């Protein structure tokens, strides 16, 4: 009798071991896929320094945060998250901010990061930063009870202070490299030393900046990239060509592609289009009336001009539909935006009737009024053309004047030789910082760029803005801004368009480049290349 054939049992143990091994290898393969690579990133315009300490112009607010970090980072609702500070507490009266600093952080030159650096940085920002003077105006001192605690003491509350601590806005610089030197001419502005995920390697003027991975970064195992090459490409078409051919992996906003190319780029394989707008920057474009021009002193004339401009058509034509309209100076992304304020409806017939009633009748050639239209070169020319055509339909001859940036700034803010200007004054991270500067009568200063352009003066608005700047109770502050928006809407010193588009073109292999609310102005520590 032969033995019954033994049913071969499945070798469960071996299978288990094999599966386990397979799992481990795939996991490590995934982890390996994340590390490595060189990012080619286009930035425009060329900055004059790499740390946004004494100036925030050009690409230094984009490049700086990769090397020099801030105390906090922010999510898409601008709620603070830890970066160099791990915990923070604000006193009830809003006069003391206590920051617990991260331990074990080293500067790129090997020295330890301590509270002395934080104290020095905040005091320096207060003196030299274009907005630091305002943001930290109420700071009287920064106490450093120990190496990992910093206490900021204020004379009056600054409710927006906690939002001002991003790497792009308030970089923390090493005290021992800056103390005792002239901050404006310090060579570390062009060769920064920071705590960030990338170390500055070289800046070949006119060509590129090379950043390398920081092996001692506090947030191990990040960063994932080996190198970042920042290329300065000033021509929009050349950037589009670079992005399309794959020699550039990333380009955002004014460092990206012209709006007319977006539809074409959406169809390209290997490229993604990101239309998110950073709430920290608060893109915003608008048109201001020069309230010193005799014709524009009449509110009915301003109302008529507002009625002649179709905002929806503007968004579709000038912004290719990618913008986000807002009827008020505070953009729709902000928690202080008052959605109940209505835009003046598009009504050219009513506009013409109003101009007739105001005494501006059509002459023989059909012109009622001649106005000079200026526009900030960072606003597209099409914007000014749209305004000219809209006003032409109701009989206003709006002559567009084109200037380069320096000439525009002088004509608009020093000589004030304009009637209407299309501007690009962003909300920045808080209305007290970005919006107050325009509507506060005390900020009308000849020769000061981006101040009170319309020469608007309303004592009630002044009161609301000044109260909101020091109000620590959040619901009360919100109500003050709501009242402000209603008051400004009634006076018509401006026509607010809203957030202009910010198109980011990114290669599909680039992942996680903008996880925070600072968008492209984050640290790139999370950025990795996915293997195809």
């Amino acid at each position: 009798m032969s033995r019954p054939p033994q049913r071969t049992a499945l070798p469960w143990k071996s299978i288990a071991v094999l599966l386990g091994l397979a799992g481990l290898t795939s996991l490590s393969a995934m982890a390996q896929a994340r590390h490595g690579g060189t990012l080619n990133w286009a930035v425009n315009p060329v900055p004059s320094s790499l740390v946004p300490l004494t100036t925030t112009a050009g690409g230094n607010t984009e490049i700086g945060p990769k090397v020099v970090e801030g105390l906090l980072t922010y999510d898409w609702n601008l709620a603070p998250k830890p970066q160099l500070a791990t915990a923070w507490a604000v006193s009830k009266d809003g006069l003391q901010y206590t920051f617990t600093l991260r331990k074990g952080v080293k500067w790129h030159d090997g020295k330890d990061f301590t509270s002395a650096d934080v104290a020095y940085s905040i005091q320096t920002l207060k003196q030299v930063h274009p907005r630091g003077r305002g943001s930290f105006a109420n700071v009287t001192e920064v106490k450093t009870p120990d190496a990992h605690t910093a206490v900021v003491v204020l004379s009056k509350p600054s409710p927006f202070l906690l939002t001002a601590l991003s790497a792009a806005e308030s970089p923390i610089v090493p005290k021992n490299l800056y103390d005792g030197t002239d901050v404006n001419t310090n060579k570390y502005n062009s060769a920064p030393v920071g705590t960030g995920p990338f170390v500055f390697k070289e800046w070949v003027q006119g060509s590129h900046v090379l950043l390398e991975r920081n092996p001692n970064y506090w947030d191990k195992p990040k960063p994932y990239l080996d190198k970042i090459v920042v290329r300065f490409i000033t021509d929009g078409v050349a950037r589009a060509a670079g992005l399309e051919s794959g020699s550039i992996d990333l380009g955002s906003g004014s460092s990206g592609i012209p709006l007319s190319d977006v539809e074409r780029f959406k169809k390209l394989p290997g490229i993604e289009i990101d239309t998110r707008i950073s709430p920290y920057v608060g893109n915003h474009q608008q048109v201001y009336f020069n309230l010193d021009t005799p014709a524009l002193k009449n509110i009915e004339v301003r109302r008529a001009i507002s009625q002649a401009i179709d905002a929806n058509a503007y968004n579709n034509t000038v912004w290719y539909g990618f913008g986000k309209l807002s009827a008020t100076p505070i953009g729709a992304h902000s928690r202080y935006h008052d959605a109940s304020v209505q835009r003046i409806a598009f009504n050219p017939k009513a506009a013409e009737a109003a101009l007739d009633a105001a005494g501006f009748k059509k002459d023989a050639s059909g012109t009622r009024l001649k106005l000079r239209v200026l526009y900030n070169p960072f606003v597209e020319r099409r914007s000014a053309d749209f305004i000219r055509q809209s006003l032409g339909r109701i009989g206003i001859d709006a002559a567009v004047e084109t200037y380069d940036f320096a000439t525009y700034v002088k004509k608009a803010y020093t000589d004030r030789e304009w009637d209407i200007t299309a501007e690009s004054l962003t909300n920045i991270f808080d209305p007290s910082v970005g919006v107050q500067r325009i509507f506060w009568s005390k900020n009308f200063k000849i020769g000061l760029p981006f101040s009170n352009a319309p020469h608007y003066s309303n004592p009630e608005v002044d009161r609301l803005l000044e109260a909101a700047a020091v109000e620590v109770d959040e619901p009360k502050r919100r109500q003050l801004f709501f009242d402000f928006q209603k008051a400004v809407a009634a006076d018509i010193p401006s026509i607010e368009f809203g957030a202009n588009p910010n198109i980011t073109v990114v290669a599909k292999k680039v992942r996680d480049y903008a996880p925070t609310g600072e968008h492209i102005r984050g640290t790139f520590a999370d950025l990795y290349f996915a293997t195809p």
Partner: protein
Amino acid sequence: MTTLSRVGHTLQRTAWQAVPTVLGVVVLNFFLLQLVPGDAADVIAAESGSATAETMAQLRTHFGLDLPLLDRLLAYLNNLAHFHLGTSPRHNQPVLDLIGGRLGSTLLLMVTALGMALAVGVLLGTIMATWVGQWQDRVLSVLALLLYSTPGFWLGLMAIVLFSVKLGWLPTGGNLTIGAGLTGWALVKDAARHLVLPALAMAGFFVAIFSRLTRAAMLEVSHQDFVRTATAKGLSPAAITLRHVLRNALIPVTTVAGMHFGTLLGGAIVVESVFSWPGLGRLALESVLARDYSVLLGILLLSSLLVIVANMLVDLLHAWLDPRIQVR
């Protein structure tokens, strides 16, 4: 006249002409730049997006803009006399360093473009003159007209679209592959690949000029008596064309080439912007927009010196090409 004394004479005459020319260029441009509205402090303050009256006053002092006009001019000339071009307040670097870092790339681009333009232009012109009136001449004349009328930046952009984006043969911009760490022969090849398109874009216009000029000059020379003698002597057509006709035709061509050296430098601004070439042209444009006068004056000074040197070299070349031309 021996070669050495010819060279010496040329150098002496050039030096005498160079100093007042350069001085004139600097002073004239200094005053021209004052007429431009807005100054460096306006630009920095505006770029920051916010400023206060105090920061602007600080900036003006830092830039030396609060001094009277003549004081600033005299200070600049004084620096020049000590061979010091000043410091750029915007970049916080000596102007000489800024310019020195970019001079090499611009010169490389210009010399390559000029060389290409001369080589191709003379070749086309010779072909046109040899087959004058026939289809080769007609076709090349139309080509020359097209190259003459097409703007350099359009030519450059179309070249990028075709060769870089569609075909992927050549890079889209820059002068080297950054971060690749190439050395030796690989580096030379990489630089050459990046040089092709910008040089072509710059050379296009001048190819048209040189080809038409060569054609006209050769046609004129070919009617001379000595050419008839050479034909009668039984020299081959190739020898006549190249050794006799072309060599004489090159005199007007090289004169024009020397004169156009300055135009080439101006055209560099456009080509460098399109191809993100890190050169002086872009630096000059950025300096104008940023009202950074020290850098701009430095570049203008250097350009005038370069043009003078180029013309001096052309003088020497003429003396070599045609010994009948005396250096006075």
